């Protein structure tokens, strides 16, 4: 069952003083099945963040529609959007976005407190999550006292504690060294294996190679996609880099054609 469906989404930015128009997304369609781990890749400026913001209901598409669990995002009333986001989506960002005036624990509690949960329930929920993320020891610390990897794991904990339908991650490994990045990706894979759906934007081939499926965006469209199938990480890595090389060379694969042909599903 498709948990997320994106149909013909188009986004045109108009600069503030009514000047030039930038077409960030021209026509994006794809869907994500329950329990999938999808990576989105593309050149800088290709519209990945824009897409993610639209999925996160932080921004509205110019046209097209996005459906999450059968709910059309553009039908949700403005005042309910924040609560919707809180209940159904989890976020992990490149620059962590932790509040420096909250301890690690309070940062993780934040979305729960906002939806009015009681303390005993919250502390019940945080225990297994903190343990599996290896941050039980630092719950009382403040963001300035912990490392980048720990910050990102805190952000992951904050994203999963609400049991969201979908986790959106925008270059989550961008600010991490390779060891922390690997650890984070392992964590992503673990929570994915326990049933969590994840959609991750990344520049890193290595990160993308951990995903079950990779979407390539170019010129505001989904240009190509790869499925892992039974392949290993190493094989996946190789195929992604081949695809990227091809894309760079101005590849002659037509987006529509590939997808219609069912990608490289094996």
């Amino acid at each position: 069952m498709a948990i997320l469906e994106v149909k013909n989404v188009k986004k045109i930015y108009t600069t503030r003083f009514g000047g030039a128009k930038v077409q960030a997304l021209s026509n994006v369609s794809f869907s994500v099945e329950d329990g999938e781990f999808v990576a989105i890749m593309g050149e800088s400026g290709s519209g990945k963040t824009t897409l993610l913001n639209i999925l996160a209901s932080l921004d509205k598409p110019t046209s097209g529609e996005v459906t999450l669990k059968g709910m059309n995002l553009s039908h949700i009333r403005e005042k309910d959007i924040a609560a919707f986001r809180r209940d159904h989506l989890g976020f992990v960002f490149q620059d962590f976005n932790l509040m420096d005036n909250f301890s690690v624990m309070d940062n993780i509690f934040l979305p729960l407190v906002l939806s009015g949960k009681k303390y005993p329930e919250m502390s019940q929920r945080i225990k297994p999550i903190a343990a599996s993320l290896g941050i039980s020891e630092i719950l009382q610390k403040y963001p300035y006292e912990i490392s980048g990897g720990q910050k990102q794991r805190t952000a992951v904990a904050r994203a999963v504690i609400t049991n969201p339908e979908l986790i959106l991650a925008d270059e989550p490994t961008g600010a991490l060294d390779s060891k922390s990045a690997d650890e984070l990706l392992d964590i992503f894979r673990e929570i994915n294996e326990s049933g969590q759906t994840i959609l991750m934007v990344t520049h890193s081939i290595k990160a993308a190679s951990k995903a079950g499926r990779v979407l390539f965006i170019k010129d505001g469209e989904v240009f190509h996609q790869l499925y892992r199938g039974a392949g290993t990480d190493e094989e996946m890595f190789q195929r992604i880099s081949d695809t990227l090389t091809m894309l760079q060379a101005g590849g002659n694969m037509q987006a529509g054609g590939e997808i219609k042909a069912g990608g490289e599903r094996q």
Partner: protein
Amino acid sequence: MTRGLFAKLASANIRKNRKIYAPYIFACVGVVMMFYLICSLSYDPDILDFYCGGSLMVILRLGCIVVGIFAVIFLFYTSSFLMKRRKTELGLYNVLGLGKGHIAKVLAWETLMVWGESVVLGLISGMIFGKLAQVCLLRMMGGGVNYNFSISAKTMVITAALFAGIFGVIYIKNVIEIYRMKTIDLLYSAKQGEKKPRANYVLAIAGVIMLGAGYYIALAVKNPLEAITFFFFAVILVIAGTYSCMISGSVALLSALKKNKTYYYKTNHFISTSAMMFRMKKHGAGLASICILATMVLVMISSTACLYIGADKAMEINYPRDMEMQYAAYGTDRATLDASALDLNRVITRAMNDEDVRTAGDIEYSLCSLYAKPDATDETAFSCAAFSGDTSVISVSVVTVDDYNKNFGKNAVLANDEVLVYGKGVSYDESVISFGGMKLKVAGEAEGLVIRGADAADISDCLYIVTADEDVLLKIYDAMEKEATAKNYPRPGLVAYRAFDLMSDDGLRVQDNDKLNRVQDAIYTVQSESYNGAFGKPVKYDSLNFSIRNRNAAGEIYGLYGGLFFLGILLSILFMGAAVIIMYYKQVIEGYDDKERFDIMQKVGMSLGEVKKTINSQVLTVFFIPLLGAGVHMAFAFPIIALMLRVFMISDISLLAIITVGAFIAFALFYIVSYLITSRAYYKVVAAE
């Protein structure tokens, strides 16, 4: 690298950082202007010419020192804010290849430019407003106005040198800081994660204790003479208490709230509690400064305005007539009193003839004068007391109903055990009153009674008692004298009192102060001749005290009170300006901090509306704290200010109350308006993409 480059870089920096540099330069110009203004007034020959010019000079010099000290503290504070914001930029220079020595040179140029700009602009505006200020001051002192425009080169040099010194020290401090820091710290110092605020309970408790002690002193002091000294201590305690309460007390309170899990993890408490903690840690000092400045403004304005406005009424009762004199006899008999009253008349008549003037509006009576204190158990029973300055001790004057009727055009009739009362500072509402065990019925108020100027000027409250006749008066005198002798207190006195206005030959009131002084001298001369037997058999003068006062001192007091009020206004303007600048900087910092929070909170699922609501309520709370603090401080300071004003012959508490409340309302309005204006800086930062 050439010197021109550093200078160019420096001026480019100042222009580029206009948003944070402009208020700093504005503050510097303001402080320079105030300093020049007050300093030049303190050397102004036109003001020195004035009859209270001498004492006003001293006050103005003190004002100079206050502004000087204030300038040091305030400029250090604002410049440190400036440096904090600029370290990233300087770090970038460092990375891009400017050595620390070079940075020091750029900073030197910047400092030099800001100094030059502030001194030049400050002096120019000081000269423009200087004349205005001089005219206002002379008007307030009750003097005439002239139109010569003078520029004091000496003052200009002093001002330029003082600020060169201050800027130099600030520069050295900044350079030392930069040499100490590593490049990487410079680069990230503005972005460094905020440290978790630790509640310092010791400091918090110390703060509460200091504040309490300050308040207690302000309430406990009952003696106007001691009030000034105690006020000083109370002020220091309250300032220290305010700083530690606002810095640690608030954090301690909030972290106590945070420990309470059920309270803390509520949607609307969660965000504001910890955000407030950080806000208070960062802005506690700034808020305390604003609070202290506000309190100072309120204290200065309300007390000096009360002096200035109350002066008219005060002078009216302090100098009921142009001239007053009395013979006071302590421990003598009735005959001596009569003889001295007679002598007083002879002396006055002679002196009037000598000086070609006549008396008018004469007041002439005898009285019994003593200090008394109500019993602890019975408010209506007075016993003898020694004057100590304590407000519980009052001065009591007893006159006969004949003297009262004759002098004040009344026709009151009293039974033997009845009295009329009249109070200054106290209103006596009881139906009986007793002295030394002698019980009397209070038949009413002695309306229209004019009390002696010396009593009006006295810091003690005083009570006038009108008795049925001389017998009753003397009975009171005897009873109290017995008590005084037994307790070894100063004995009550019998006083022969005369007061009158002076008219010259043409029937006009004498206006000239010199003439008043000449008549006073003449009276002295005749009095000493009388002492030497000029009128025959001398009275027993050895036990008599002669004293005289004339209205001429009133002019001096006017001038002085006017000058004090004027200085109060100038310093208030300065302090209010400082408060606004601090507020502005606070808003800008808060803006940068809140901008990030805004973004994050939205991403984790708060709507824009909710985010705005919580942040607004925090900003408003923080905004009201200093105003509230100033209001509470002012309320506690009120009694001690009222006490101190008695030393300046003002005992009208309702006037002080009206002025204080008025000043507070005016200040609150000013505060709100400047908040609204500075908060635009905040919203600009927060709304920036």
